């Protein structure tokens, strides 16, 4: 009874229906992080720096994952997926050619166009490097658009380093100031810096806070301390860009899971100027 003949004009579409992408490359980066290159089946993803997609496996579920490749017109895109649960563990087990569901891209982007002519200071912790990398690669490919580029990367211990080939490339580049640290280096032959990421910041003598924008991406615990150090260096809140992590379900501003006061992180974020959210008490 009551079968619907509604003329709901777009009933044929759904914001919850995933598209398909297939694995074209795959490489384990740490014992829990795996690099993937995917190829969309039908169209280029068309993402911008710092955006995310909802990826899924039928029967398991969906989760938001940051895109780590620079924007491109190809159907290919890259991600690093950390194995933290059932969905990510199933994806880790997939082989080249196998498919996942993809919705998106969603979210705001690193303001790379607005930042032209400025110096960039990337401060990345752990898999915070994944979304930041999409901006880093863009700024390195368009090196003349930006003044000084400084990249800080920190992780728990040497075994947690990701994109190691690129890290050493950045280290070698004369036009990039790259600094790296690990929280602890016990039981390893690590020769580099040891200490949390903020211990690198006193080394940034040449960074001019007036003409530099800091892009900060890392685990929730990192933001407070990094932002305090940036303030000490003279950075104002409108020269700090952050990318926030929240629980997300829908990715499209409906389900409420990612909401902080009036902000839906999935739509209004994940990338924010710190000046826009500093008064949001639950933001960091």
């Amino acid at each position: 009874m009551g079968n619907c003949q509604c003329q709901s004009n777009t009933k044929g579409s759904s914001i919850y229906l995933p598209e398909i992408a297939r694995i074209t490359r795959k490489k384990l980066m740490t014992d829990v992080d795996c690099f993937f290159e995917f190829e969309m089946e039908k169209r280029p993803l068309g993402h911008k720096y710092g955006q995310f997609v909802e990826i899924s496996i039928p029967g398991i579920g969906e989760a938001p994952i940051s895109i780590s490749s620079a924007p491109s017109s190809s159907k290919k895109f890259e991600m690093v997926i950390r194995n933290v649960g059932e969905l990510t563990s199933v994806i880790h087990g997939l082989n080249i050619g196998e498919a996942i569901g993809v919705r998106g891209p969603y979210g705001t982007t690193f303001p790379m166009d607005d930042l032209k002519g400025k110096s960039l200071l990337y401060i990345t912790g752990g898999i915070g490097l994944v979304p930041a990398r999409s901006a880093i690669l863009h700024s390195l490919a368009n090196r003349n658009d930006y003044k000084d580029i400084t990249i800080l990367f920190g992780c728990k211990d040497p075994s947690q380093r990701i994109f190691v080939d690129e890290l050493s490339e950045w280290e070698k580049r004369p036009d990039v100031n790259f600094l790296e640290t690990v929280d602890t280096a016990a039981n390893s032959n690590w020769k580099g810096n040891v200490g949390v990421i903020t211990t690198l910041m006193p080394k940034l003598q040449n960074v001019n806070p007036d003409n530099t924008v800091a892009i900060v991406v890392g685990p929730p615990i990192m933001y407070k301390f990094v932002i305090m150090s940036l303030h000490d260096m003279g950075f104002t809140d409108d020269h700090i860009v952050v990318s926030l992590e929240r629980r997300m379900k829908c990715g499209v501003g409906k389900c409420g899971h990612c909401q902080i006061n009036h902000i839906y992180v999935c739509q209004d974020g994940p990338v924010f100027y710190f000046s826009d959210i500093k008064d949001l008490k639950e933001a960091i």
Partner: protein
Amino acid sequence: MEILKISLSDFLAHVNKKIQAGDSKQVGVVPKGSHFVFGELDEAAQLCLDYDVTILPPKKYFQPQREVLVKYAPKDASSYAMVNDCENLTLIGVHPYDLVAIHLMDRAFSEGERDENYMAKRDCSVLIGLYPTRGFEHRFSASMIDPQMPYKVADLMLIKLDDNQLALEVVSKKGKAYLEGAAVAKSDLSEAFLAQARNKVKDSQAFPLGPDKSPAYFKEKYEHPVWEKLGEKCYSCGSCVFVCPTCYCFDVRDEVELSLASGERVRYWDGCMIESFAICAGDHNFRKERGARFRHRVFRKTVTLPEKYQVMGCVGCGRCAQACTADIAGPMKVIKTMKEMN
């Protein structure tokens, strides 16, 4: 707006015709124990046009407690197929505050990325509003809603004149079409008389702030001890959000048949008062404290939605106040407690 009259028995006879025709599900308010619920009518005689409040708001017809969004063969991403089940539906006897709530839901689901699962159900619905004839001790809707706003979504509005007579306001084409073949007569009632009939019952309490003042008032109270004081009594049961006509947050889960042959991605009602609502990767919970969750819910009604839509996010139905075992959930309670504490 055209105004018509119809006797109650003729109206019920018309509803019966619709039930028999069977091309649109007729849903109305029916008694359940000492309470009322929206339920499908098998015959018009079940319909109750004299009730205080329903246990659940009518949102369940547009955003069901459980709703399949996508189906698939497990593990096979190429099998994803959308699901959008809707059916022709007439809701009879919706009070003005619930109509305003539907208007808010319409905006949330249609603006930005359009949610067709919700919108298709709305497109297939006819809404017949009804001015309340019974008071409800927890209601304060007169202070929360703009009296014109129900007309943004209603197709017809019923005004009970006495035990046997109804006035009918024909708001939309859909409403007019619904009445085709009904024994209606032109109305000779004056606007003054109708205005009085619309406002037969008065609320016993009023919320002191409208959408212009409320956001600033509450933002200033962000650190007020009231959140912890009331929040510490909360059981995190979620009743206040499930019964709320303007709460639409949801969870999405995958469910696979025992045979593993097919599965569904399903959305369920969820709510910010439930402890796990804001946990993200690494088990970091952004609203661990009950007080913080309580504040978040009240702020959605008094700050977030008013700032976004210039309409209060609470329509004053009073359901949360009735549903809450801890007796803390009602926005009136928050205001009163704040005043007592000052």
